[in-house]
């Protein structure tokens, strides 16, 4: 009897199947959100948000069970808690589809972000989830606010920031590696998105929240959090966040630029041009002026008129030039204000001017590297905006300029 083929088969079975680390689909639960709060007795309180996958299969669209489950535990390290979650949950947790990491304000303020090492080190987490700092409420609350279109809270949050960045840009677009390299870099301080809750947290956690038109509780974007090294020092509002993101990698945004000269009048009495900015590109530079660094921002891009409230005749070249000039002044002023605000209030270089300085003038940077933030806070800022107004939608003259004037 020839036993050779049989033996070979058995040997192959041992070597060719990768079944040592197999994970069956019905043994796992997919985690979409993680929330880290300060614990009462121990260092952290970790909340995981797990998708209830059966709610999404067509055959069981009952709508009775909740779209996601959350569960919290307290402990001294996130990694231990992650593996301990089965105290209350049936299946093994899989983190590769994590969408949002919520960090409580308290945790961030005390600078206990050591748990990020676990996310960085473990191969399970991809580098594609949002990092948000929660304002007002504890982080865990935000994993429990459902929404009719995207029922799972973190999926909603992720989609929301993504759309927001593409449309207007009020999110710093920070990912884990960005955050960590900003923490370790001397020439840059980290930022993270900030969110707040509108409405009653209790009501949001029930799927009844999805049944009314005026949603009773909703998670809103609220600008961004500014860090000094690894400690949270404050927040910036949405406009400043957009301006910050403009210095980084903003692509599209919208502006309302006053078309008459900005005078004492209140903004509600003014007339505005509504401009859509597309394809913008920003260059950061640090030049030396008599030995002192000058921070330079140069913005280029295209704009188009989406609407105008002004009576000017848009068919004329002068009007285009006038609007263009107004826009550039407006944008330069906006960005300048934001940078100066950060310089005064926080003195933390979140823009990465230090890194730019290092690349341009390595030797000079080395001298001030240790106290770069102080140098940054006192440095002069120059913003140059070079946006081009290209077109004006499907109408030429605005009807506003055609309104017959009756005196």
């Amino acid at each position, binding site marked *: 009897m020839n036993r050779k083929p049989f033996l070979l088969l058995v040997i192959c079975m041992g*070597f060719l199947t*990768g079944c*040592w*680390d197999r994970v069956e689909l019905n043994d796992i639960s997919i985690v979409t959100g993680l929330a880290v709060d300060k614990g009462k007795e121990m260092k952290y309180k970790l909340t995981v948000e797990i998708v209830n996958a059966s709610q999404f299969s067509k055959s069981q669209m009952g709508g009775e069970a909740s779209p996601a489950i959350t569960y919290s535990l307290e402990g001294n390290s996130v990694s231990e808690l992650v593996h301990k979650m089965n105290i209350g949950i049936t299946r093994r947790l899989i983190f590769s589809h994590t969408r949002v990491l919520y960090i409580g304000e308290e945790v961030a303020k005390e600078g206990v972000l050591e748990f990020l090492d676990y996310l960085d080190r473990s*191969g399970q987490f*991809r*580098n*594609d989830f949002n990092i948000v700092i929660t304002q007002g409420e504890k982080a865990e609350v935000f994993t429990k606010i459902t929404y009719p279109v995207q029922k799972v809270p973190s999926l909603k949050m992720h989609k929301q920031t993504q759309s927001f960045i593409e449309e207007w840009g009020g999110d710093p677009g920070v990912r884990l*590696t960005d955050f*960590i*390299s900003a923490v*370790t*870099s001397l020439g840059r301080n980290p930022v993270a998105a900030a969110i707040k809750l509108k409405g009653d947290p209790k009501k949001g956690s029930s799927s009844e929240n999805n049944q009314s038109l005026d949603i009773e509780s909703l998670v809103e974007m609220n600008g961004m959090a500014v860090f000094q090294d690894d400690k949270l020092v404050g927040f910036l509002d949405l406009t400043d966040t957009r301006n910050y993101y403009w210095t980084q990698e903003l692509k599209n945004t919208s502006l309302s630029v006053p078309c008459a000269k900005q005078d004492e009048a209140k903004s509600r009495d003014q007339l505005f041009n509504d401009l859509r900015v597309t394809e913008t590109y920003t260059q950061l530079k640090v030049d030396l002026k008599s030995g002192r660094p000058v921070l330079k921002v140069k913005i280029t891009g295209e704009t188009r008129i989406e609407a105008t409230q002004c009576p000017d005749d848009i068919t004329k070249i002068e009007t285009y030039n006038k609007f263009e000039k107004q826009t550039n002044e407006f944008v330069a002023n906006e960005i300048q204000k934001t940078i100066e605000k950060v310089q005064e209030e926080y003195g933390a270089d979140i823009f990465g001017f230090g890194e730019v300085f*290092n*690349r*341009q003038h*390595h*030797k000079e940077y080395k001298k001030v590297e240790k106290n770069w933030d102080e140098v940054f806070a006192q440095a002069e800022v120059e913003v140059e905006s070079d946006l081009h107004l290209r077109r004006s939608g499907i109408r030429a003259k605005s009807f506003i300029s055609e309104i017959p004037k009756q005196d």
Partner: protein
Amino acid sequence: MKNILVEKLSLWQLFILIFIFEIGSAAVVSTGNDAKQDAWIALGVAMIFGLGIGLFFHFLLSRAPGKNLFEIFQLCLGKWMGGALIIMYILYFIYIASRVLRDFCELITSFIFEQTPVEFVAITMVVVIIYMLYLGIEVMGRTSEIFIPYFFSFIIIIGIAVFISGEMEFTNLLPILGEGIKPVVKAVFPQLLTFPFGELIAFTLIIPYTSEFKKSKKIILLAVFASGLILIYNAILQIATLGVQMRARSNFPLLSSAREISLLEFIERVDLIVVFIVMYGIIIKVGVFFYGALKGLELLSKRPYRMHVVPLGAIITFLSVKISDNFAEHIEEGLIVVPMFLHIPFQFILPLLILPILLWKTKKSKEGRE
């Protein structure tokens, strides 16, 4: 010694073997970290030295045509002294083969199979290598001929894919030579010089068996040059994607860079093609060192090397697991102890010492003939 098979490698196969051998593990573990953002410059400098090293080894072999390094040892130092030296080299090759194997096992167990015992990964790999070497070095050459298109195109594709995903920031490469030439020199000597370029020493046992020895010089230079270019490309890719600090903190930077690939939010998680590159690179690298050790045993025992394949494979597997207790030990030994105390003596000092004797001996024999 009549039953020993004479094997022949074609020049193209030699080129591929050297190419894959050089890239194999060097592309994956972080190399040249001392030079920070100038790691790619350091690699370029090391490559130029690598060309010199290749020339040197070829010159050594050309003095005694048809003889491999071990036979040259015996020629120069006689049976006993030469034999002792060969035994040392055999141990060196076995040790390096197990180190390289361990590199791969660490990668697999920390990235993909977290629960799988490291022994199992090692055994699986060695079984393949044993099978390949049992059939002979020619088989290794031919297998590489089949795999080279994938190997090469995957490396190139990773870079392009990361670039298209918009994850590369070439400003990470600045400032160029900001700290002057010093860090580059520090990275080149001794680390980059010995690994991967000095490791060409293992090829002194293969080059004599190429079909056209005279043309092999050009091939060696070409292969070292091509692999150097790929390594530079790789270093630029890693630094631009991860940044200097992140690269230095990554155990396997190429894998970490490949994780950033996200094309059209659809083609993601392609880091496994890096594992393919590493896997094939490691097979060749372990295979070549393994073959070196086998050739030594063949010469000493006067029996065909195929007899030694299985026992030696078992030893390499065992060693690769036992060689160090943990990853830190493995890497620190690899960066500090091994280059200073193993690579430099075995790759440079001993061949350099043997050179005058060889020149003297060959001169004498030539004169004798005349």
